[in-house]
Every structure is written in C-alpha cells, then in structure tokens.
C-alpha cells in the first residue's frame, strides 16, 4: 500500500453548477472557486441557496447539471471515501442518537480513513485525541452528547468533523441556536483551526457582522447565484445589503476590530 499523500490545500470549484430538489433549480448555473486556506462566510437571505451550495460542494446533493470539481475531477466520479478525506460537512442542527458518548461520536469521524480490517489505527487514535484537545473536550470524552450544553454539543460535532481530518470544512450555520458567548466561542475555535491547523473553512452564517468580523472572504448569495464576493471591507456595503437582503442599513466601522458593521436602518427612514 503506497502511503496516501494528502494535499495540504484544497482545489474545489463548481462548473456551471445546477442544484435543486424540484423542477426549479436552487443553485442556478454557478461557477465558484472555494478560496483555499481562507475562512469564508456565505451570507444571503433565506432560500438564496446557501445550504444547498454546501450540500452540493460536499457531494451530499447530486447536481441536476454541471459539476463540482475536486482537484479538477468531478466529485461524483471519485471514490466517496477519498472525497471525504478532503471535504467535510457539518450540517445544520445535527442530532445524535441517545446514549452516544462524545468519544464515540468523534471516533465515527474516522470512517473515511478506515478499511474493513483496518478499523482503528494509531493514526485514528491520535486524530481523535487531537480533535478532542482542540475543542477542549478531552475531559468530557465519556459524557453523553445529550447531556452537554448547546455550546459543548456543537464543539463535539466540530470535533467529529475535525477527526475526519479533511482540509476543507464546510459548516452550515454552526452558531445558530447558541447564545452570543457560545457563538463567539465557536467562531474563535474555527478561526484558530483556520490559522493554526491551516484548514480551509467555509461557513454559512446568518449574522452578517460575524461574517464580517471572522471571515477573510465573504460570499453574498442571491437567488442561487453569487451576487458579490470579496474581502469584507469591499463587499459589505449598504448598497449590497439592500440588494441581497432588501434591507436599508447603515454600515459603520466595528468599534473593536474596525471591520464593517451593519446596522439596520429605522423603518421610518426607509
């Protein structure tokens, strides 16, 4: 067995991608390149196709036409495990079966690295320990996932995605349903993974300001297409927010970081 050389970067793009569940496409002829090594926030109104895009990028949803190319080859024509070793997805609001421990959950992320008779290598063990340490869950490894707080539970799922050891992590609304302290905690964790672990992160966020603050790259989606993308300072403008969300807003500098901060305008001024 030749040792697999795992690429330390990601080459994932879409080519005239159409995705959908019914007759009308949700993603409409999209050409998009995942910014390698960066932390990207995907924003947009409900139904603009953010989650659908992540599902398409992670091989979960098969395109109705067009393709998603990983290292230049269609992901649906590659080994599913080989794709899973490079691209991981954390869906929105995942649920764990009852009675599952954190350790058991995180271990399951190693599946794409295992074979029928090679089910638990020392590499698997190390990846799990590292994922638990990075998410500060080493002491809670034997706790039941049902008994964790919301923030801890989300960290447990992120730990599972980490143990998968994919260079690209796609996260669908990782901060939804969490209080603001836990939201910040998750975003700081993702930032750390991006910088220290050199992971490429693409996350769907509802909160534009979180995207502005934590992402290197913002992708604003509108009706299944990318309306605009670029660095937060370039992209997050009042006119973009009006176009994408249909909301009049004022954009000021964040008093802490200086990044754009979007404040909705009062309705009577609109």
């Amino acid at each position: 067995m030749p040792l697999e050389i795992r690429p330390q970067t990601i080459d994932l793009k879409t080519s005239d991608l159409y995705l959908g569940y019914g007759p009308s496409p949700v993603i409409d002829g999209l050409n998009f390149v995942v910014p390698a090594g960066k932390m990207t926030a995907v924003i947009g109104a409900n139904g603009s196709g953010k989650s659908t895009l992540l599902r398409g990028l992670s091989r979960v949803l098969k395109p109705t036409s067009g393709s998603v190319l990983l290292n230049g080859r269609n992901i649906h024509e590659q080994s599913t495990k080989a794709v899973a070793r490079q691209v991981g997805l954390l869906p929105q609001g995942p649920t764990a079966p009852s009675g599952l421990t954190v350790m058991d959950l995180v271990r399951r992320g190693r599946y794409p690295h295992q074979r029928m008779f090679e089910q638990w290598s020392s590499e698997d063990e190390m990846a799990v320990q590292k994922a638990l340490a990075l998410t500060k869950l080493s002491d809670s490894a034997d706790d039941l996932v049902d008994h964790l707080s919301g923030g801890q539970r989300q960290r447990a799922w992120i730990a599972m995605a980490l143990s998968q050891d994919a260079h690209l992590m796609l996260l669908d609304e990782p901060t939804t349903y969490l209080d603001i302290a836990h939201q910040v905690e998750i975003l700081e964790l993702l930032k750390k993974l991006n910088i220290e672990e050199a992971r490429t992160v693409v996350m769907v966020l509802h909160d534009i300001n979180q995207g502005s603050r934590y992402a290197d790259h913002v992708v604003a989606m509108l009706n299944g297409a990318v309306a605009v993308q670029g660095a937060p300072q370039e992209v997050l403008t009042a006119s973009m927010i009006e176009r994408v969300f249909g909301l009049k807003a004022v954009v000021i500098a964040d008093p802490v970081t200086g990044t754009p901060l979007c404040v909705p305008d009062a309705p009577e001024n609109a």
Partner: protein
Amino acid sequence: MAAPSPVTLAVLIVSIVAVAVLISFTAVLKPSPRSLRKKRLSMLVDLRILRLCGGASVLLVLLTLLGLETGEYPIPRFQAISTAFWDRAGEYSFVVNSLRFPRVVTALLAGFCLASSGALFQTLLNNPLVSPDVIGINTGAALCAVFVLAIGADVGLLPWAAFAGAVVTAGTIYLLAWKKGITGNRLVLVGIGINALLASGITYLMVKFPIEQVLAAARWQAGSLFGASWSDARTLIIAIACLTPPAWILVRRLRLIQLGDEMASSLGLRVERERTAIILVASGYAAVAVAVIGPLGFVALLVPHIVRLVAGPLTGGTLVLTGAVGALFLLACDLIAQQLFAPTTLPVGVITAALGGPYFLFILVRYNRAP
C-alpha cells in the same frame, strides 16, 4: 413429570437472578475500549461488551442444559444431558435428541435472528418502537405462510413462502415510503399501514378456508416451537451464516447513517445503497425466524432495547450481544411456556407477548416523555 422438578426451578431462578445481577453490575461500568493492532490490521474492542458477551454465553450454556432437562417425559436427572452430548444412543435418545435438543437449538437461533433484526431496524430508523413485527415484515411473512397452510400445500414450502412474503413486504414498504430518499418516520408509518392491511388479509384467509385446514395456521401464527426439528435449526444456521458477515460490515456504516443522512454522506457513504442493504439483511433475519417458528412478536422489539440501555449504541460487539440475549430470552420464554401450566404447554408467543406488551407500553411512555 407434571410439575417442574425442584432442580429445574432452582436453576431457572438462579439464571434469571444472574442476568439481573449482570445487567445491574455492568450498567454502572464505563466503556473500556482497547485497541488491537497487528501490522495493518486493527480494531477497537470494548472490554465491557466482551465481558457481557462472555456472561451471556455462560448463561446460554446453562439454559441449554436446563432446556434439555425440561419436558413432559420423565427422564432421570442429568440423563438428558449425557444422552444429548456423549451417550447419544441411550435409552432416551428419541425424546432428547429428536424432540428437546432441536427445540432448544431452534429457540436459541430464532431468538438470535429476531433480536439482530430488531437491533438493525431500530438503529436504522432511530426509533426504539420499531421492529419487524411492528412495521409489517413479520405479518407479510405470516400471510404467505398462512396461505400455504390454508390451501394445504406441502409444509416444506412454508419457510420459502414466509421468506418471500417478508422480502416482498419490505420491498413494498420501501417503495411506498420512497420519496427522493427514505426517512425513518415515513417508513414506520407506511409500515404500520401495511401491517394492518396484511393482518386483515390473514383474517380473510382464516375465515375463507375450512376450519380444519386453518387450525394449523392459527397455531403456527401464535408463534410456537412445538415440533421444531433439526431441519429447522439447519435452516436458521444457514441463514445466520449468510446474514451475519454482511451485518457486521454494515454496522459500521449504520453507525454513520445514525448521525443523519447528510453527515453519513459527507463521511463518504452512499447512503441509499447502504440503507437498502441494511433493510435487506434485517428483513432476512426476521423472515427466516418467522418462517421457522411463526410471527413471534416482541422479541425483536424488547431485546435490542434492553441491550441498548445496558451496553450503549450499536457496534459490531453489541450486535452479537443483542443476538445472544435474544437467544437467551426466547429459550427462557419457551421454558416458561412449557412449565407454567404443565402439563399443558403454551405457544411461546403467548409468553413473549405477555412480557413484551407491558414493556412496549413502558418504552412508549418513556419515549413520549423524553425531551
């Protein structure tokens, strides 16, 4: 000969107490995983599950011996055991080797099949109230078998008819529940509907055909081990040998499907294909058990649930443990069925239903109260 001998009763009670102690003892233990590695081969073994399996095996042996000693025909104490294992041409050879031994082995194997089937279905659909008897797989098998019995066809056709019925039912449920993929809840609801439909079909057959032909069907339908033979045991062994290796491979994938379809897919699984395979294997287990002993209820529901409470989520190890506990449970129920109103013996299905019904309600109440 009428009442159970004191030794029989004592051993039975000791076994049951031992099970209770074993369960309460291990429930407080934490999982203790050990990795086994040899060159490129590696696996993770939970010592706790291993110990539980060991305990279950000891009980299996004890209960098997007890099963050989138990029956209407009076045989001097321990003579039955020697007749079964080394003195096979002994005085009681017919009673022990043609009646009791095959019945005990059939009970063990059928219990293993039913519990394995239930464990796979419950985990796949993430629902503790699901089992092949609830979603109509058993009833489908029963409908075909009753038809064979009612028209007075060769009894040898019975296993095949039941198997065909189970697989066709599973396929029908799957197709009706299919809507760009399968969700657990829809499959359960469709299954419950199909179950009702098939049950009415059985009633129709029972009314339509002459009573003397239907009587055999009625008895078979209650689930009985009466008259179990070595050929029944052989059918079950072949089925277990064919179904268990794929079940073992599929369990690791099933554990990912448990985390949700999107998660499983992004971990590198072709979800629909694996799900179809799991349904086939789980239906196969149920079908073969039903074919041999009738549509026995509740074993597939109750045993996996209890084992999950004690041993945690499904793994390859807990699947074996579930099968072993299923075997124990069915044999114990059969011994109770034989002894409770001796010399009258009840069909074992009466006992599993009497124990399983209240437990089903217990799970239902718990499940509804869960947050």
